[in-house]
């Protein structure tokens, strides 16, 4: 199965749910397990929240862009912003690292994203925005139930 979509939206936290739902509907035809969906949504949620909170500092004039492409049972998703960027990506990806400790953020976003995806890459530079790309392969459909109409 091949398909492609892009969603872009104003950097307000209400739109995180919009992104999560749209991207879930996008892969629904692959009939993922509830566990896979939940992992996939968590990754999107973490990346989009980072773009809004860290990238744009919640400046609603910022635009977050999410691109998704399906190739067979694998989805490749890119979440990008044109916000402040990350000076030291390696440091930012360390478990527990957060630049906003005062907001009670856990610093576990990237660690969670890595554990729920098959691959994750982060491309960012200070002032130049951030691009997070991940791939996730959904398991083959199991034949336990009779086919559903």
């Amino acid at each position, binding site marked *: 199965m091949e398909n492609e979509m892009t969603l872009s939206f104003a950097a307000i936290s*209400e739109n*995180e*749910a*919009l992104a*999560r*739902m749209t991207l*879930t*509907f996008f892969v*629904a035809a692959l*009939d*993922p*397990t*509830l*566990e*896979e*969906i*939940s992992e996939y*949504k968590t990754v999107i*949620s973490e990346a989009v929240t980072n773009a809004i909170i860290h990238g744009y500092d919640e400046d609603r004039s910022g635009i977050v862009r999410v691109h998704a492409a399906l190739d067979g049972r694998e989805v490749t998703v890119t979440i990008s912003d044109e916000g402040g960027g990350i000076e030291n990506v390696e440091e930012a990806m360390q478990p527990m690292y957060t630049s906003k400790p005062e907001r009670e953020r856990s610093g576990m976003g990237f660690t969670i994203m890595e554990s729920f995806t098959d691959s994750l890459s982060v491309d960012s530079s200070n002032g130049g925005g951030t691009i997070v790309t991940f791939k996730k392969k959904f398991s083959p*459909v*199991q034949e*336990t*139930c009779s086919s*559903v109409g």
Partner: protein
Amino acid sequence: IGEIQRFLRDDGMVKVSRSIRELNFKIRHATDDFLKDHERSPTISEISAILDVPVSDVIVAMDAMKDPASLQEQLYE
């Protein structure tokens, strides 16, 4: 109920919190039962078949239970 049910079918947009909560609850139970029987997570179409509700409703209800402070809260309350 008829109207709600019809609307639920036409895209998973329920306006009554009780329906979405009930569905929420049913999905959790069905998922637990399925896990016990099959030792793996059910797919959305399996849950949809077990509960006899459209896939889109399963997706919406799942999201509502995961993050109660989300958009769904506004949607269904």
